[in-house]
């Protein structure tokens, strides 16, 4: 089954699908601009095309203000497109996407498990299923035993885990992550990154991960999409040639450093050097 998330205003009748069978997310010529009253529109993203394959973690890196968050929000339906098309393929009854927000964004009057259940509640009336999926997702992020704690009783890292669990619990076609670890301290961030890799391996999830940190992008992804800014365009897609299973030691290795250098060099290239082969 195929669900098109065509949000370009007119194109709900869609056309022939642009995504091939193995592709979960297809962005085709997406542009996004912001209107400011009395000033010319600001083009945040221009003519952006990208494919994310099933079971793949794709990172989107770029300098701040390059429109990567705008793209993610457009996929999530929180922004409108100016032109282009976005498609997400799902299995029958599957949620097309779930967002892990930069801030925990938990409902303060709900306990951890009630927060984790929020997304499933919107999909099904089955209380038992809701509870078991929420509890499972909490356990997966290492919060078993904290089900009945309110967000203000949890640390920042734990709140962010609940945020992740809420998205995992709906088992979406693609996880959309918007710099989810950026507000954590360095040590906690590294730990959460490694845990995230574990979760991805366990669930075989497809993910689109927005970040501005090169090492995070390389560590977590199968492929890294590098963006230029003003307007945000796709500059290059680099494949991370490391074993799928990684741990913290791998990020001190020479291969890892070389990959980071390659991404950083692509980021640093002068404007107008997009290779859109």
């Amino acid at each position, binding site marked *: 089954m195929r669900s098109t998330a065509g949000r370009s205003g007119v194109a709900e009748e869609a056309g022939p699908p642009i995504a091939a069978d193995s592709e979960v997310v297809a962005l085709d010529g997406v542009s996004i601009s912001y209107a400011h009253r009395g000033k010319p529109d600001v083009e945040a993203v221009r003519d952006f095309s990208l494919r994310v394959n099933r079971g793949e973690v794709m990172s989107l890196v770029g300098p701040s203000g390059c429109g990567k968050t705008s793209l993610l929000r457009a996929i999530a339906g929180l922004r409108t497109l100016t032109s282009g098309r976005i498609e997400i393929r799902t299995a029958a009854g599957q949620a097309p996407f779930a*967002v892990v927000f930069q801030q925990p964004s938990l409902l303060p009057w709900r306990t951890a498990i009630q927060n984790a259940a929020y997304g499933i509640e919107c999909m099904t009336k089955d209380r038992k299923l809701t509870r078991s999926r929420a509890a499972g997702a909490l356990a997966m992020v290492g919060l078993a035993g904290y089900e009945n704690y309110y967000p203000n009783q949890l640390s920042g890292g734990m709140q962010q885990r609940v945020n992740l669990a809420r998205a995992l619990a709906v088992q979406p076609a693609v996880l959309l992550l918007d710099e989810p670890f950026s507000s954590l301290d360095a040590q906690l961030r590294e730990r959460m990154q490694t845990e995230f890799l574990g979760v991805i391996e366990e669930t075989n999830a497809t993910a689109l991960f927005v970040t501005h940190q090169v090492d995070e992008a390389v560590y977590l992804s199968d492929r890294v999409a590098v963006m230029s800014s003003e307007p945000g365009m796709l500059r290059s897609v680099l494949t991370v040639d490391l074993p799928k299973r990684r741990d913290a030691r791998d990020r001190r290795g020479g291969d890892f450093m070389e990959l980071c250098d390659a991404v950083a060099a692509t980021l640093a290239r002068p404007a107008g050097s997009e290779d859109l082969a």
Partner: protein
Amino acid sequence: MKRMFSAPAFASTEAAEAGSAAAPALSPHVALTREPPRPRRRWVQWLSANPQERVLLWCAAIVFIGVVWQVVAVAFVRSPLFFPSFTDTVAHAWQLYVSGHSIYGDFAQSMYEAGVGFGLSLTGIPLGLLIGLSRRLMIAIEPVNSAMYALPHIALVPLAIIWFGLGVTSKAFIVFISAFFLILINVSAAVATIGRELQDVAATYSASRWRTFITIILPGSVPFIFVALQLAIGRALVGVVAAELFASNKGLGYLLGVFGNNFETADLFVAIATFAAVGAILSVLFGLIGRRFEKWRIAA
């Protein structure tokens, strides 16, 4: 080289220059110590262990005020006509409420008027929620709302009497107007300020408008609704007193006028204290109900 004005921070540098390797000695003077706090006094311990701590503190404050009141009245003012003592006032209250039964009808009348008006003003909660949901409605209602909120409601008393006569209705109307717009303005503002982030969460899970309202907007507004109700109680009582003082033949407000005109100062104190007590009790009650809805905030 010898410096005339060397700051202490430079002392070690100077020592090093002079070729001495000795570290600067700690001053024998202790500037700061941190230790566990001393055990608290026994009565403080007893109080904080007591589940009724709050009530006990309230009682203590009331007793304290009563004592000061008594001392001021008996020792300094010495004129029951001008400033009756605490015990005088209590005696009059006993007579009015217990032995005489003369004030009950008036008390009930005032509470009935306030209750009807306040009850009707609760429609401001759903209306406020509705208005807060729509940015345009919010803007449209703004001038009217601000005007009605700022208007001294006592100014409407003569009009209320022309419209509704001298009975219960005119008083209930004044109470309603006093409380309704305060509730409306607070509740609609609460809805409008609920964080965009949480609504984004609902949107990304394709929550319906109704679900978004029930799971995010309503629980987010609850604390503000209870604050508005607490404020509205005060305003409702002002409304009752003003309307009854102006024109009525029954009610606590009416009695205020009668007692005042007859220089029955102790009785006047009883009537005033009654209003104060009703306001305090209702306010605490709403506060307690509000706290029940806010387990999550207190949980920390």
